[in-house]
């Protein structure tokens, strides 16, 4: 339970960063934190205490395995997260080139 609670705390810290921080890089870090929280939660879904690695060696052994599917899915999610973070940082750097600042309060040419 404590581990699940830590996921939620991590998620909330990330959300706090996105909502309140004015620095673009800090917002990006907030996203990375949320992503870690979700990935950690997903990996924990498949976890069982005291279970074996999901490799079947003998067919007659009792099956008490960790669920391998969430791990595979989390790997995919991490790769997607990498792409998103890379794109987001690229856009942030380009914004810095144009506006010479990371402060979102000063980057507001758009209305909406």
């Amino acid at each position: 339970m404590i581990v699940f609670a830590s996921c939620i705390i991590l998620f909330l810290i990330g959300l706090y960063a996105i909502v309140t921080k004015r620095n673009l890089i800090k917002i990006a870090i907030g996203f990375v934190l949320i992503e870690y929280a979700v990935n950690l939660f997903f990996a924990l879904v498949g976890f069982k205490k005291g279970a074996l690695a999901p490799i079947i060696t003998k067919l007659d052994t009792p099956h008490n395995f960790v669920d391998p599917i969430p791990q595979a899915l989390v790997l995919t999610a991490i790769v997607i997260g990498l792409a998103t973070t890379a794109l987001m940082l690229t856009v942030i750097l380009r914004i810095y080139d144009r506006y010479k600042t990371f402060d979102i309060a000063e980057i507001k040419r758009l209305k909406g």
Partner: protein
Amino acid sequence: MAFIPLFIALPLFSAFLIPILGKIYKPLVWLLSTAVAFVLFVLALYGVAVSQEISMVVYKMGNWPPPLGIVMAYDSFSAFMVLVISIIVFACSMFSLRFLSTYTGNWKFYTLLMLMTAGMMGIVITGDLFNMFVFLEIAALSSYALVAFGLKGEQLEASFKYIVMGEIAGLIFLLTIALIYAKTSTLNLADISTALQFAKNTTFFWMTLGMLLFAFSIKAALVPFHSWLLDAYPAAPAPISSLLAGICTKVFGIYTSARIIFNIFGLSRANDPLFFNFLIGLGLLSIIFAGVTAFSQNDYKRLLAYSSISQVGFILLGFGIGNYYGVLGAILFILAHSLAKGLLFLTSGSVVHSAGTTDIKKLSGLGERMSTTAWSFRIGALSVIGMPPLIGFFAKLFIIIGAIKAGFLWIAIAAGVLSLLSLGYLLRIENNVFMKKGKSEAKPAPFTMRVAMVLLVVLIVLVGVGYQTIVDYIAGPAAHALLRGLEYSHMVFNYFSMSF
């Protein structure tokens, strides 16, 4: 049915072929992307023909049977969406040739366009929840990059806002997938729908549905979450605004939520009236808020962006009504909206290309100089307003019939009256840009741009005149596929497929 993976494989393959071709001979890039879009269109027509006989085609990836392996479930609703996607992608790709002549690095544009197509095709065909997430992210990532394609300050800013909103939606979707997997131990949509029936009306059931709807309404830009769209559409290059407005938000937000509400969670108007009333409320909120705000806009593309939010509200209204005519109306509305709003954004592109600005106060006298563009705009606008015999009229008509049959007379009247809003704000563009006399140096739009616009005009008129055929063969079966509800999972499991 081995043709189904082609919808994803063709654009994906060409996306990676394009950089190589771009090194050899630049014009080939445009040719390849347009040709692929055309082939997809032909395949989509074939797919519609197939779906007349077999209402659900299941393709097993690697020949693993459904609950274990990943499947592609291609039913009439998917067939319909694939067809619409391919039409809009074809028109946009056609339009881009001359529009992009002022940009550098064109092959990157077509690579991203093809990736986005692959992603969208994947979303509508897949029968697996996690797969849907992956395709959603592929398409969304390419659209973030495409919004920022011009690399001007405004475009980057818009793209950043879009990334922030889009990624919150994406991560909430992933979290919901984790929750659903924890509860049901499966990711196959059909299997989830069977498993969820044992948890029906529990807190878990409504909470996951709420989280999914939250994620998808950000992607669809429904009113409380629409702010990213207002910056992204005006900033993006016109063919991309056209693609985003025409089909992206429908695929990312509307298709996914419709599929999940009707087929996976198995809700229906008869059993859960409260939920469907909530959808009607969301729809009306978007229609009214965006429709009224559109009047105060002075930017051609920003006005159209507001208009698109308001039109998405109509689609949601149709699904919220929830009987056959309402759903049919919503599905026809997806088609009508894609063609008409796609066309209107293409005209904005042609205006930008020739006159160099999108401020409707500064533009004037373009009606005579650019007659093809002006007439395309008029036809598109008439379809959005709902003029018979154009397709927009029949879409609204079916929604209104649905509302009356469901006993919501006031919604029928409101939908009729609220369409007048669109008349009002579209007339602002017509009056200022095309009707007003004034000196203008604008040249007529180049040939390929005109071809793309005329193609959509012809489709709007043809589809409108032949609406009965569309209803009988394409939109009607699609509506039935949604209203089939939980039959979906039986059909996926009972299909003895002949893959390879």
